[in-house]
């Protein structure tokens, strides 16, 4: 409770100290990365992704036939829990600024909201990449374990295309979550809509026969389904992903950015 360290005289100049330079992007990025893991919500979400991935792998190890125990199948097994949980990280990265009202501090320390948005997007993308790399590592270890203990086939036969698609699926998911979070600016609404809209959409397409052919163009999940079936995308699949991705990722992201730039940052 002493003010001893505060005795140096301040500048009386009417203008800002010219030696102070703008905040470099790397510092914003570092802070946004740290904010993803320094709360209980962020920490447990990442821990849960890790634990569930391991659990799924272990189950797969025991229930799959030995000839199914190949690297590419282990990678496929990690994809599902990751694709479900990683987008939540994308959502929380933006919505916490509003639900926890930290935006008041974030946007006074860096008034350029677009820089904050880019720093957040890069941060969640990096975490997404890291999660995929870790998943690939776990899949490789599991493949070794499968060979050693379960008499697994242990094939390492995996194309660059498989890995590329795996990254694509997870990154599209996390960016979509980020876009929903930015557009809705509310954790509960963003999470519910992120999970409910695709389900409702899929139900609609499967019930209305005439829409079935349109589904891969209008529904991201259908567009990305080949990655979970054959584990590589082909030419037509990329067109589906481009169109469905524009509707469900690019448009919400753009609208969310506009909303962020215009919104008043309030405490209540």
């Amino acid at each position, binding site marked *: *409770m*002493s*003010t001893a*360290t*505060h*005795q*140096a*005289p*301040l*500048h*009386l*100049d*009417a*203008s*800002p*100290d010219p030696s*102070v*330079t*703008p*905040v470099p992007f790397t*510092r*914003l990025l*570092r*802070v946004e990365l*740290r*904010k993803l893991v*320094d*709360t*209980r*919500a962020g920490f447990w979400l990442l821990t849960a992704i890790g634990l569930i991935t391991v659990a799924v792998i272990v189950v797969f190890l025991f229930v799959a036939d030995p000839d199914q125990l190949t690297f590419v199948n282990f990678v496929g097994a990690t994809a599902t829990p990751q694709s479900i949980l990683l987008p939540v990280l994308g959502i929380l990265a933006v919505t*916490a600024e509003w639900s*926890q*009202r*930290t*935006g*008041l*501090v974030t*946007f*006074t*320390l*860096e*008034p*350029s909201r677009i820089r904050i948005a880019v720093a957040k997007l890069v941060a969640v993308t990096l975490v997404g990449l890291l999660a995929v790399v870790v998943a690939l590592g776990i899949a490789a270890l599991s493949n070794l374990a499968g060979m050693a203990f379960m008499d697994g086939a242990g094939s390492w036969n995996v194309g660059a295309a498989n890995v590329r698609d795996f990254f694509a699926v997870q990154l599209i998911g996390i960016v979509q979550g980020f876009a929903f979070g930015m557009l809705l600016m509310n954790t509960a609404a963003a999470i519910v809509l992120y999970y409910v809209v695709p389900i409702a959409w899929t139900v609609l397409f499967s019930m209305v026969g005439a829409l079935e052919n349109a589904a891969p163009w209008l529904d991201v999940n259908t567009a990305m389904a080949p990655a979970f079936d054959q584990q590589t995308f082909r030419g037509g699949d990329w067109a589906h992903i481009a169109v469905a991705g524009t509707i469900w990722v690019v448009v919400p992201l753009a609208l969310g950015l506009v909303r962020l730039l*215009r919104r*008043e*940052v*309030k*405490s*209540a």
Partner: protein
Amino acid sequence: MITVEELSKRYGAHQSVDRVSFRAQPGSVTGFLGPNGAGKSTTMRMMTGLTPPSAGRSTILGVPYAKLPNPGRHVGVLLDASAQHSGRTGREVLRLGATVMGLRRQRVNEMLEIVGLSGDEGDRRVGNYSLGMRQRLGIAHALLGDPQVLILDEPANGLDPAGIHWMRGLLKSFADRGGTVLLSSHLLHEIEVVADHLVVIGRGAIVADGSKAELLNAAGTLVRGADPDALARCLDNAGYVYQIEPDGAYVVDATREQIATATARHGVVVTELRGADGAGLEDMFLQLTADDAREKVTA
């Protein structure tokens, strides 16, 4: 220095802030006073770039807030002490701020020490903090970048009397070293001790702006006599306008010297003679609040 020029904010049909202009000078504490809902927080959010103004402009150190490079190093801002992630520790909140501002790590410990959140209090989660502790953390965050200007919205809320005393000392010494302080409050008594300058806002518009001495003198002089009736006759004779207080004292629109001269001439015994304690400001303040209340009844 903070300059606010004709700042206005309209929400639909409601004019929340109406052409507000004032200055906060370096080396002084400016109190921004007004009842709840008068537009203080909206004005402060417009000054810090969080709320786009409908009209007008404001500058800090001669520059619009959004144009300040690394603003945390120039301006310490505390708009709502509770607006922190409840899952972060106090230390972590400061560490994030220090990283953005590019400060050395040791600065965080120093600030925790200065605001009295040292030891394990700094390592507790903000969700477990009392409002007073959050205010201390918020003040630490505002001072983190060693700024020249402080903008604090209701920083005394939730502080205990010792905490309020501590904060006043801190703001005074900040201003004495040449810093500019703008702090808001809805309580006159909370602010009149520390502020050198007062800006009073009511229903979105400035209703008074001046040095504390000016505004408090405008309240008049309080005089009490051994014989109230004789005192009243004396004041009537001298031609001074006065009001009778409930406890029998008179608040007179005259200086102490004028009153002393008049009572001496009439041989009236005076038992108390002093400035009227900002009662005029207080009245103006109550009036502002009462007007708002009345408006709600008729609406």
